[in-house]
């Protein structure tokens, strides 16, 4: 929140999701200065787009609220949003990062009063809702957005809409002359917490994502269930807005597949088990879930969550990798395949198919000295060759939130060890 000057005793944290925020806060609360860089206009990352967590079914925004309060009260963390690290130079204890900062077209004077949003007419896709819905081209990224400041979509810059927004703002918060800039930041150590992205489901051709409207991904399904989502928390199917009560969950959509992602993404089984709760929550009478799986990976303590779901009569399990999805005349996606436990063939129509898409590390394009050592899936490995650049969270492995936070906390200590050495040397 402050503008302290970055030095070799500063820790640079790349990525403002739960892993990055954790690494930044844990380091700051141990007395270190941190620069936290986030490419989106607001912090929170992927978890802030989830409706509930497994296994507690609590809301990610609850933890986000706590982390944001920690952040608001801590002068040691400097947050830079709409920013991407384009390169890092130097070596352990002495790095300089080039950071490209996109224009927000809104300055600190913004009070989030919303006048600009009401003034503009242009609607643009809402990435926070995976483009399932649209929002005004002058918008607050989401209800929990920090910084709590509006953003102007570049699409309207130079149009009458931009002028309307500017005119509507009583506080001179809109600055249409903002330009993209590149800033240099010094740091002794770097925590790389760029998280993950959902595997491109369109590449899994037999499942017809992109061809059939009623085939969606697990991350999109989270938005449908969320009160802040495009349907206001109702599970409606995209094709016709009809209530989707009979829902298929297809596991390993991309994961454990040599044609796509070679690794197991760890979270997808639990995510689908969790999402069957959404179906029951919204349609207690006649909600129905079917999980098509290879192995249910409800690891360690999560096993009892799995057992609870198994006991639920509205949920059925079929041990089968679905062969293909077709669409019937009513626009229902139809799953075709073979239940391998005793060889039973099925051709089952559902209201909606949810693909439990795999985790792909968003480490690509990272440009640092001696190039980062990663495994065959692109996850950053713990390797001396990486110097003082430490992978954290899902940039380092396919992890659930709990493990990602552990990993981020560990990464924070590794970074602190480096800057402490620098401090000793400089003292």
């Amino acid at each position, binding site marked *: 929140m402050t503008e302290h000057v970055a030095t070799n005793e500063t820790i640079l944290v790349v990525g403002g999701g739960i892993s990055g925020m954790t690494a930044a806060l844990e380091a700051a609360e141990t007395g270190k200065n941190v620069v936290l860089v986030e490419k989106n206009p607001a912090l929170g990352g992927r978890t802030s787009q989830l409706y509930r967590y497994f296994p507690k079914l609590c809301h990610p925004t609850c933890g986000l609220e706590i982390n944001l309060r920690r952040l608001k009260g801590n002068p040691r963390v400097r947050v830079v949003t709409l920013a991407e690290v384009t390169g890092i130079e130097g070596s352990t204890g002495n790095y300089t990062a080039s950071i490209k900062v996109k224009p927000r077209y809104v300055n600190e004077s913004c009070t989030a009063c919303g006048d600009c949003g009401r003034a503009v007419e242009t609607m643009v896709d809402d990435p926070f809702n995976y483009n399932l819905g649209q929002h005004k081209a002058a918008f607050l990224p989401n209800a929990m957005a920090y910084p709590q400041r509006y953003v102007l979509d570049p699409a309207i810059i130079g149009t009458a809409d931009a002028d309307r927004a500017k005119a509507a703002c009583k506080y001179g918060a809109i600055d249409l002359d903002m330009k993209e800039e590149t800033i240099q930041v010094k740091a002794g150590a770097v925590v790389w917490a760029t998280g993950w992205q959902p595997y491109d489901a369109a590449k899994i051709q037999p499942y017809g994502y992109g061809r059939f409207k009623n085939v969606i991904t697990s991350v999109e399904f989270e938005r449908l269930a969320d009160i802040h989502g495009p349907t206001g928390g109702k599970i409606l199917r995209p094709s016709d807005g009809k209530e989707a009560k009979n829902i298929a969950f297809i596991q390993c959509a991309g994961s454990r597949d040599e044609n796509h992602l070679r690794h197991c993404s760890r979270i997808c089984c639990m995510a689908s088990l969790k999402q069957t709760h959404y179906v029951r929550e919204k349609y207690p009478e006649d909600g129905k879930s079917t999980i098509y799986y290879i192995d249910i990976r409800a690891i360690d303590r999560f096993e009892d969550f799995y057992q609870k779901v198994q006991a639920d009569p509205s949920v059925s399990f079929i041990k089968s*990798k679905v*062969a293909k999805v077709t669409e019937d005349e009513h626009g229902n996606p139809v799953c075709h395949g073979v239940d391998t436990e005793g*060889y039973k063939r099925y051709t089952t129509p559902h209201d909606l198919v949810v693909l439990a898409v795999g985790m792909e590390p968003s480490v690509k394009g990272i440009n640092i000295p001696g190039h980062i050592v990663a495994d065959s899936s692109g996850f950053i490995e713990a390797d001396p060759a990486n110097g003082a650049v430490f992978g954290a969270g899902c940039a380092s492995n396919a992890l659930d939130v709990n493990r990602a936070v552990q990993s981020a906390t560990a990464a924070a200590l590794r970074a602190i060890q480096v800057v402490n050495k620098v401090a000793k040397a400089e003292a």
Partner: protein
Amino acid sequence: MSANTALAEKYRNNFLKEIEEQVEMGDWVKMCMQCGVCSGSCPTNFQSAWEHPPQELFMMIRAGKREEVLTTTSMWNCTSCYNCIVRCPRKLPITHIMHGIAEYAHRIGKAPKMQATRFFSGLFWKNATKTGRVNELKLSMGLYFKDGFAQGVKNGMAMQSVALGLVKAGRLNVMELFGGHKCKDQKGIQAMLKKAYEIERSRKAAKMAG
């Protein structure tokens, strides 16, 4: 001692090893993770079911169910559509494994004798390699008459309309029965194939001995 009993003896209670060494692409069988996408992708599946779909056959092989696997008609249902291959998350060459197991069962005399596709497959190969090129008429006749003359005529009649259509369209030449297309260097082809069979046999034998 027949080929079969010899092999059964050699690979006692390790059918998987037998398949790995004696069947084309057989060493892929162990890589299956039983997801079942092959079974679900097989076109014939949605018509009349196989007795055992590929992924189940693989499990049976690991479980050492030699008799059931070698005598089933299942592999013979393969239409070589390659759906299973392109979808298999473990990249198993399933189509070829199916053909391989079929070929092996046929080779050691385990395959169901009168299974139509087994019969046709053999017929096709002989037909093609005899002159180097396929003679479609003889091929079909051969198939129709596999169950004896009377049945042959019956099958022939059933197919008559089809055949006539082709004849009219100039796509079936009755004269093919006498001669028809052939390669010039048939001798060379025969010699070449003979050699190929020799080499292949010796290689499999070597594996069995090794």
